[in-house]
């Protein structure tokens, strides 16, 4: 059975989903790509925007979410942490 995702896993999945889409994504796509319910995504998104990891922009009357440099750095740190955790069996 798959392990339940924790807060850090969800944030990493959200940031990865934006990055995989070339750095910008529509909010609904992000919700599906990171397997989140609407309310859940809203909470995490607010946190990421507050921490300047993600920014909202409007293009052709559509809302997009873009990953910032801080967001990319955070994702890099989380990936390093996960690799460290796996290697040391933490």
């Amino acid at each position, binding site marked *: 059975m798959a392990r339940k995702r924790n807060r850090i896993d969800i944030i990493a999945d959200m940031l990865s989903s934006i990055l995989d889409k070339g750095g910008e994504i529509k909010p609904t796509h992000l919700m599906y790509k990171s397997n989140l319910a609407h309310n859940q995504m809203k909470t995490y998104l607010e946190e990421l925007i507050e921490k300047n990891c993600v920014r909202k922009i409007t293009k052709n009357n559509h809302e997009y979410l873009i990953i910032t440099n801080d967001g990319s750095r955070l994702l890099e740190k989380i*990936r*390093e942490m996960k690799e*460290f955790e796996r290697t*040391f069996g*933490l």
Partner: protein
Amino acid sequence: MIQLVYNPHWFYGKDIIIDIVSIFVLFLIAFFSIKFYKLNKRNKNYLFLALSFIFIGCSFIFKIITNFTIYYHILETRRIGFMTFTYNAVNSSHILFFVGFLMYRLLMLFGLYMLYSIYLKQQKSNIFLISYLIIISTYFSSSAYYLFHVTSLFFLVIITYRYLKNYKKNRDFTTKLLAYSFGMITLSQVVFVFVAINTFLYVIAELIQLASYISLLITFIMVLRHGKKKK
């Protein structure tokens, strides 16, 4: 009389360099582990790993201080001879040696026990009991040197076994290299147990220790690189 120095003359000072390399690797990994803990405070194992590496690193600092007092003592007696003037210097060296060596053994054993406890969860009563046994075996034992290395060996065998199990589960190069690094640290402890037979064994044990910590550093660099590359 207890033999204090197992180190051949020509190797004096070189073991200090090996210990400095070990301290650098241990503190570097501890620093990153604390950084990762700040990112994910729910997983306390990052903090325990950092603390155990800091303990082991500090134990090497005390080992260096101890070695300095021994080398200093030897140089002094050579230069000044048996004049009354040297008597006090020798006495203070003994105190420094005793405290340094005691702290080296205590911190090393507590560090290894903490690392061991990450993989084999301990009950509170167990922690007190083992801590008590570590303290009395370090402080009161007449064969403290052997007891210290055999106890370290015991902890290291179990830690290495856990890393080997982790490698079998993950099957990748970094987990394999980590198991090898700790395997080499374990091997160095085996050789340290027998240094009384021949002082050259001390050199071999120190060189194995150097190789193991370099291997640990390479493992850590690879972990960071893999982490960056991962999609």
